Structure formats: C-alpha cells, structure tokens
C-alpha cells in the first residue's frame, strides 16, 4: 500500500514539477530495530518516483557505517537532503504529519540552492567562523513546527558553517529527555542554547550568535 494517497501524490508531483537542480535523498535505515525505518524508506522512494530530479539512495546504518559517518548521520531513520552539494540538511525520524511540508520545502530549497533569509541574516551567517549545529525538535502533530524547521534548514543552506536537523521527538525520546524537550518546536543550537516556539529569524539569529560567542 502506498503511504501517499492519490491526492497528495498529485500535489507533490505538481510541487516538484519545477525543481531547478537534482536532489538526492540519502536515506539510512537498518534491517532490524528501527521503529519507522521501513515507512521512511518507502516515503523517500515514493517521492523520488514523482520527479526526474529526485533520486533515492538507501543505505544500511550498520553495514554502510563509513557512509553514515561521511554524511554525519548518527541515528536512524535519517534522511540527508542533498543538492549540488551537501548543505547539512537532515531529517531524523519520519517527516510525516505537518513535517511533510518541511520535507518538501527542503527538497525544493536545496534544489534551487537559494535560501530565503533577510539580508542581515545572510550577512550574519556569512560572518560565522565556527561550525553551528541546529537541532529542531518537533512532533508530527504540531502546526507551529514547520516554520522553525524550515528556518533552520534555510540557515544551513545559506551557510556552509551551519547544519540543521529536524528531530521527530516521539521517535527519539531519549534525545527529548536529554535536551529537556517539554514542548515543540524547540530549537537547540550547539547543544547549549535553545529557543522555544516558532521564533522569527532575528531572534533565532541572535541566539545563534549567543551560542557561538558563548562557546
């Protein structure tokens, strides 16, 4: 049974019809022991089938350890959304529910290579001299979450210093506990700094700079 129904399939097809450049969905799964690995894999394959520009590559987290390290994948299910180069856009856990919107957005943005940020934002990110890791915790039932995920991914696309993960909290409860997630979206920057809610770009930037300076 396909995961995407006919109607959604048609919409996705239409959304992906004007992709500018190729996109690789590099997916890591495992033979056993991963809650939604099978579905995530199926999702990636169904989407790749809807556009000539999108390809799915499926790897085994254990057997292809080196590849996982190469893409800095440390948990599964994982999807790296790769355009002309690796911008550091990752999804951990299945991007279902509201996060499906973030997922398609990532494909489109990575394909064009153009992030939509303010001029000040682009400038601030260009000045970064240290790596920044953004983790956005979400649940699939959270309508406020996609804006936070999309913003983080745009920052990753805009700057080679930034990588950004969506983390589906219900699939990684230990991380939710580790990062004290009691509400979503919660954006964790470089392990230490965090932002609650779908904060606007300037606020996230400020926190990002705080995180870099604090380090």
């Amino acid at each position, binding site marked *: 049974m396909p995961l995407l129904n006919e109607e959604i399939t048609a919409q996705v097809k239409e959304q992906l019809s004007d992709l500018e450049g190729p996109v690789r969905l590099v997916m890591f799964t495992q033979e056993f022991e991963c809650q939604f690995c099978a579905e995530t894999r199926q999702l990636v394959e169904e989407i790749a089938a809807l556009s000539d520009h999108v390809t799915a590559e499926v790897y085994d987290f254990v057997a292809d350890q080196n590849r996982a390290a190469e893409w800095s994948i440390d948990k599964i299910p994982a999807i790296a959304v790769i355009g002309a180069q690796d911008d550091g856009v990752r999804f951990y856990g299945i991007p279902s529910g509201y996060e499906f*919107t973030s997922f398609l957005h990532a494909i489109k943005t990575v394909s064009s290579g153009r992030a939509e940020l303010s001029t000040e934002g682009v400038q601030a990110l260009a000045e970064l001299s240290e790596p920044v890791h953004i983790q956005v915790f979400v649940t699939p039932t*959270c309508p406020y979450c996609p804006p936070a995920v999309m913003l983080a991914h745009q920052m990753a696309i805009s700057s080679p210093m930034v990588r950004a993960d969506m983390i589906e909290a219900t699939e990684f409860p230990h991380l939710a506990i580790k990062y004290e997630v009691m509400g979503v979206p*919660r954006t964790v920057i470089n392990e230490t700094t965090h932002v609650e*809610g779908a904060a606007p770009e300037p606020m996230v930037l400020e926190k990002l700079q705080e995180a870099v300076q604090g380090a």
Partner: protein
Amino acid sequence: MFDFKLTPSLQETQQETEKTRGRVYDLIVLGGGPAGLTAAIYAGRARVDTLVLAGSLPGGQPANTDVVDNFPGFPEGLEGPELVRRFQSQAERFGCQIELEEVVEVDFFSRPFTVRTHRATYQALAVIVATGASPRRLGVPGEDKFFGRGVSACATCDGFFYRDKRVAVVGGGDSAVIEALFLTRFAREVVIIHRRDELRATQIYQEQAFANPKIRVAWDTVVEEVLGDQTVSGVRVRNVKTGEMETIEVDGVFIYVGMDPKTELFAGQLDLDEWGYIVSDHRQRTNVPGVFAAGDVQDPLYRQVVVAAGTGAVAAMEVEKFLGEYPKSRIDKDVSTACCETEL
C-alpha cells in the same frame, strides 16, 4: 497510521522577493487564515495586484484543527489543514503572491501604506487586516518563563511529553475539555482548573470528562502562579469563593482560556474596542479609509471559518471599489482628504 499534510506554508516565492522591492501593491493582506485567503481569492480574481503576508501560522487556526464539520460544501467535514490548503491553492490560481512573513510594524498614517516584516518593507494602496486571534495567556507569574517548557497552548503538539505525568488544563469551554480528554491518552492524571462551578463545554464533552477516571475538576479555582525551578512543579491556585490558596502538583500546564484578537500592532492607528477587536462597519471598513478588517480580528461574536471567509470576501470587494475610486495616480493627493471627509 501516518498522514502527510501539505500545509499552505509550502508555497515559496523565492524569486519574487527581488521583484517586490520598491514596488507598490494594490493590496496587502495581513494574515493567511480563512479571512485573508478568501480576501486574496476575491482580490486576485478581480485582478487586484495582491500580496498576502501569512505570518507564522499559514492557514490560520484551521491549520491546528482536527476536523471542520460545519463549513458548507463539505458534507462529511474536512480536516482543517486540508480545508485551508484548498483556500490557498485557489488564491494562487488567481495569481496572488503569498509570503510567510510576520508583520512587525505598520504605518497607516501616510500613503501608500507601509508594512514591515523582519525581511522586507512593503507598500500598498489598500490593506486588509486579517491577523485573526491567538490563544489567550493567563498573565500570571511563571507562565512566560515556562512557556514551551511545561506551559503549553497546544495539547496535540506537546501531549506526548507528558506520558505518565500529571497535567493541569486551565479553562472550562469546549477546547479545554476536548484537550483534557485528549491528554488522558498520555497523562496519568488531568486536573481541569475552572473558575466557575460548572463547565461551559458542550454536554457530550462534559459527560465524557466526568466519566473519565483520569480527569478531575478543581471548581471555582483560578491559577495565581506557575511554580517550578528548572521545570514546572505545580500551580498555585486560589478558590474564588473561599479565598483559600492551595498548590496543585503538576508537571505541565495547558492553557485554554479563550482567544484574543491579534491587534497589538494596530493600536493607536486603528480604532479598537475595549477587548482589543478592530472596530469595523458592515462593509469591513475601519477608521482609516483604505484599511479594511476581516475575520476573527474584528469579530468578538461568531468566530467561525465561514464567517471569516465571508467578511474576507466583503473586504476584498470593498478594496476593489476603493481602488476604483482612488487609482494609483491620485491616491497621494486626494485620498487623505477627500476620502476621509466622505467616510467619517
């Protein structure tokens, strides 16, 4: 078991941002909910050059609503996100540009009107304000500190984090009781804190709540403070009849005490009523000619999708009329005097 929502936020118009600089739109719609999107459908169809700034909740409140059961034309009901996604496709079909930006400042004193977001400054001859409503806060100590970390206004988002924990739900209306019932899937105990001695919620929800062993109600009770050090440890409450104070130990607090119109941005420029709603007439006009209001932002009474859509349509038709009377070339010179004299 999985669903895949394509919410309106998907639409990106990256190339067009460049085009917008220095351009004066006919119309800017503030808000991407039912009212704003319907206004956009009507305006776009009438070939009014329209920009929609949809803010952080594209689709508006229905994007956060399970099922909308009473929107005509959908006899089986429809998922909220799907309903507003359709609103948006329709607006796009008529050529409206939709951006996900949050408006942070407006200037309705000079023309063309100016609208600022974090990303850009936009100008237009006419504006429709459709920023809707957002959940009301309690306004007690501790609430802000813990918002997003133990205090929440979205049970469907955050319920998961309260598995086997105790939570409080503040409020007594439909939303409070529905969400309290939802939270029993996760939480070990749910305390509804309500300031009166009976619930306002629909009878069937009340019956379900009273029959649920995980739910208890603290009657005649108001929250005075959210307590906790690193995380929420409880709420300090007061009985409004006896004045007695008490601490209820909980790990999370969900607030459902109604909605407030989102009008802070417009204070001092648009007339607001004592509850903060924009004052508009039956043609959706505000006190500033050329600025119209539609949907929940000006509706303390009905607050329904179909009503929001209806007022959005009216506002757009009025904009068309306004633009016809004051075309671009004349607007600077004439409108501030001529139209204000006739309108007020």
